[in-house]
């Protein structure tokens, strides 16, 4: 069975990710979020909680990075997908360094330009997708559909 790691910040990011998870029946879905336990609307076989952080408490990224590495080492997924934001970026960077196929799906909220984190992900060589064709065109990235 193919294993996928799905990781996102709470709120809209996580909701969008849950729509994807619903469609991945037949995969082993390892979910990573910042909720203390997995919300019921998110389908998945396993759950890990990590700390949320943003630009104002960026030091937490070190801890998230360490935890991401440990999870990747344990789970050895074939794909990692994130819908952002900051913790998703750290996790996807570590996954990329670890040699796992890593996909960043920029939030549907970003209808005119790529998010800052999405841009950083792109710079680091992560496969970045936008859910808006116009944003894909402007950023020279491929369009592969959308979650909503």
């Amino acid at each position, binding site marked *: 069975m*193919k294993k*996928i790691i799905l990781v996102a910040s*709470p*709120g*809209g*990011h*996580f*909701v*969008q990710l*849950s*729509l*994807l998870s*619903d*469609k*991945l029946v037949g995969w082993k879905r390892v979910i990573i979020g910042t909720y203390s336990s997995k*919300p*019921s*609307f998110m389908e998945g076989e396993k759950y890990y909680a990590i700390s949320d952080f943003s630009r104002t408490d960026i030091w937490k990224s070190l801890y998230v990075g360490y935890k991401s590495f440990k999870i990747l080492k344990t789970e050895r997924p074939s*794909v990692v*997908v994130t819908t952002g934001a900051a913790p998703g970026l750290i996790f996807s960077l570590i996954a990329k360094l670890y040699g796992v196929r890593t*996909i960043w*799906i920029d*939030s*549907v*909220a970003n*209808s005119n330009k790529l998010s800052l984190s999405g841009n950083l992900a792109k710079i680091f060589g992560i496969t970045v*997708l936008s859910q808006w064709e116009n944003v894909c065109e402007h950023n020279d990235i491929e369009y*592969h*559909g*959308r*979650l*909503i």
Partner: protein
Amino acid sequence: MLFLTIGTQLPFDRLVGMVDKVNSELQLEIEAQVGNSKISANNLKTVSLLPPDEMDNKLDSCEVIISHAGMGTIITAIKRSKPIIIVPRVAALGEHRNDHQKDTVDSFRGVSGVYVAESYEELKELIIKRRTLEKPKGLNSPSIQRLVDFIAI
């Protein structure tokens, strides 16, 4: 029938009050799950908390859902192809611990079938236009399948 839900955890007097005020004029059939909101609503059929099965029935039978910007309700509306009007809780008004619902509404702005109201006027206008609101496209669109296929390569 329009159905208002404010979630199960915290009161949301401002939203209940706004919908009640709109309906004092429009006199529509609006049912509401108001949790522990304190405000009295004379123009809504209110209940504190519905059992899950009844909640499902209401969500199925209503024309439009009006809701706080809670993820659970938004997902439910999208899955059932019900137009939903969402109003974010504001931390400064004591409606939630933080402003993550503001982020949630920003994420859903422009998504088909999901409508954002951040003021009384916006809410009223959407309720007046209720019959012309689009249904969410649901979760079986070809575009999500395309994304799943790309991930599964």
